[in-house]
């Protein structure tokens, strides 16, 4: 399935992108969720099943590393060196995408009235 390969193509899915952004400092599960919520002013929420699946995927690809394990319960993760490289590239890609959209948005808004 092509969409399963997003990571192989060195692109991050949106949820992966948010999680990697939050992990530039060491955080455990709930911390990740809270930081993403803070960074997005409460707009982005990550459910626990999605969070667990994505953390396991990012760890398997060595994009994040386990920092401390306090007991068995809470695992703390942080972005790895290769995760940083990939994240930087992905941030830039997303900025380019947004710039493209911005140029067109100007035209869209300057043109007809579309109820905005």
């Amino acid at each position, binding site marked *: 399935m092509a*969409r*399963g390969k*997003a990571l192989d193509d060195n692109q991050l*899915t*949106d*949820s992966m992108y948010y999680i990697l952004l939050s992990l530039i400092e060491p955080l455990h*599960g*709930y911390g990740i*969720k809270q930081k993403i919520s803070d960074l997005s002013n409460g707009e982005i*929420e*990550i*459910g*626990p*099943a*999605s*969070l*667990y*699946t*994505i953390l396991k995927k990012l760890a398997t690809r060595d994009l994040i590393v386990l920092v401390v394990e306090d007991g*068995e*319960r*809470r*695992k703390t993760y942080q972005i790895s060196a290769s995760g940083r490289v990939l994240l930087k590239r992905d941030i830039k890609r997303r900025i380019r995408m947004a710039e493209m959209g911005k140029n067109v948005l100007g035209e869209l808004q300057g043109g007809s009235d579309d109820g905005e």
Partner: protein
Amino acid sequence: MESKVRYLWNWGLAFDENRLLRKLESMAKEGWMLDGMTTLRYRLVKDEPQDLKYAMDYKQVKPEEEAEYFSLFAEEGWKQICSLQGIHFFCANQDAVAIHTDWITEMEKYSGYRQSSFRTMVISAVCFVCVFMLGEINALSFLGRGENWVIVIALAASAAIFTPSLMMVIAYKSYMRKIEAGKN
């Protein structure tokens, strides 16, 4: 005295996951709380009526990872109720965030389940063919006419496993198509 335990038959999650979850929610409003499950049925016990949200996840979690998996749910307000062969039931207050907020991980939930149904389907199909071939050979040589019922039962058993597993594979495929169509 009024009974404190009730059971709901498990008609196969593949066919009615959403209906089952909504049913559990309406039962919880009447004070019947999901408490445990077997392959055949769900057990509900009598408690105070509650306005709850139920969710089911399918994930094969290694024993050493279970604590992390369930604590992520607990931290977002989802309490684990029961688990069976990679199927996990949770409940939470109405304001809890959905357990899957990403269509890709949600698809993977069903593709994992579909794979295990697919394995069952292939194994039962192979059994069916093997038994059938054996029956053909036996009819010609060592088994007498009287022993044919053994073959018939074995054929019926493999067909009985094959048919629901095939239906499940199809049901999950359609779930996945729905998610893909509705992704945002």
